[in-house]
């Protein structure tokens, strides 16, 4: 099997440049590529377009890239956890495209699956539909939405093998599988990297064909945004 292993984040991000478009997996801070983000901070690349469901929080995740003004444009569905984001947006420093979450997920899936456009009812009749083609099917109105692709996709999985196969854990799956398929170069970081053959072929969430580089992350903080518990 083709071996996709690289040593670390530094090697995995070779070729990353100013002005590129990136996809970053995760929902809130759950399932984000923590090590790739750290490396992007270290590299200091700027004028980035970042596609991610959220924009992190002020002091973690994509929020760190915003703090360092590395992001020119953000494409997301919900950015409510980030005051610095809101400040940059309202001041005009940051260009933002807000997309319904399902449309975002499907546009990314379409990018990976070679589907240049599709129709969805989400956003019809709202400002999301402005300037977009709309059409009726079976008496209901739909908007035409186009695929999204990226120069690099950064995804995070629970386990991965040297062939690039990935398994996610819990709701840390979220946008990661679609993004893995939609990147020209997909960098997967995993909590545990195992030799090809250790993962059950029947239980792979992301087939290795989508992953160009894989490495085991040095450390995962896995910060929790809303720690909610009940008494036993």
């Amino acid at each position: 099997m083709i071996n996709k292993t690289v040593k670390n984040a530094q090697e995995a991000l070779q070729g990353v440049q100013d002005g590129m478009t990136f996809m970053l997996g995760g929902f809130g801070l759950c399932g984000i590529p923590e090590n790739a983000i750290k490396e992007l901070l270290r590299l200091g690349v700027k004028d980035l377009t970042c596609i991610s469901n959220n924009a992190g929080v002020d002091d973690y995740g994509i929020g760190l890239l915003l703090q360092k003004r590395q992001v020119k444009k953000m494409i997301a569905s919900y950015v409510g956890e980030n005051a610095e984001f809101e400040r940059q947006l309202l001041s005009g420093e940051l260009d933002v495209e807000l997309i319904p979450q399902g449309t975002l997920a499907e546009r990314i899936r379409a990018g990976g699956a070679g589907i240049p456009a599709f129709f969805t009812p989400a956003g019809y009749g709202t400002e999301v539909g402005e300037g977009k083609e709309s059409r009726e099917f079976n008496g209901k109105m739909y908007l035409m939405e186009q695929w999204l692709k990226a120069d690099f996709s950064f995804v995070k999985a629970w386990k991965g093998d040297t062939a690039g196969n990935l398994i996610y854990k819990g709701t840390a799956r979220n946008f990661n599988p679609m993004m893995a398929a939609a990147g020209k170069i997909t960098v997967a970081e995993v909590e545990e990297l195992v030799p090809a053959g250790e993962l059950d072929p029947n239980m792979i969430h992301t087939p290795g064909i989508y992953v160009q580089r894989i490495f085991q992350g040095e450390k995962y903080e896995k910060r929790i945004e809303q720690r909610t518990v009940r008494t036993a």
Partner: protein
Amino acid sequence: MALDKNQIAKRIAKEVKNGMYVNLGIGIPTLVANYIPEGVEVVLQSENGLLGMGPFPTEDKVDADLINAGKQTITTLPGSSIFSSAESFGMIRGEHVDLTILGAMEVSEQGDIANWKIPGKMVKGMGGAMDLVASAKNIIVAMQHTARDGSSKLLKECTLPITGIKCIKKMVTDLAVLEVTGEGFRLLERAPGVTVEEIQKATEGRLIVEGDIPEVQV
């Protein structure tokens, strides 16, 4: 007396039928889960990718990799399943989810809803709300009848950027239970002790009152 948040949730819980798959929005809708009657089996869908959302975890079971759409730590139940965001919204868009309960800032008498943006003031994004309202067969809105300044949130036309058009069918507010007919808000029930006149006053859009209006039983 106007209903409090828990009473609104309790009233909405009566609309939840056995065997339903339900998506609950943030805020009052989340509380609905606490009032599902005994013997009514429902499955909660969390749009970040979980079917069969369980209660919050005990301290020792907290898992950063298991959260709901409100980013709260949660648990699974026997029979739960986990999937990608594309699958999750396929489920929503494909009308497999039977009921969506969500909050709103404004609802119009045509059933338009606004709940995602206040221009120049609040820019958080629509998250999954536009997908949910454009797709659900059955949507119930939980909200306060009026804003803090007393102005009505049940309008002829929404003034805020809308989330979806002609989609809201039913509403439970602190003052009333209403059906949105496309021609107006049909008053179904009123909060205990609240008069039709008070509801009329708090409703800018057309209020349809036919016959005797019973009080909400909660």
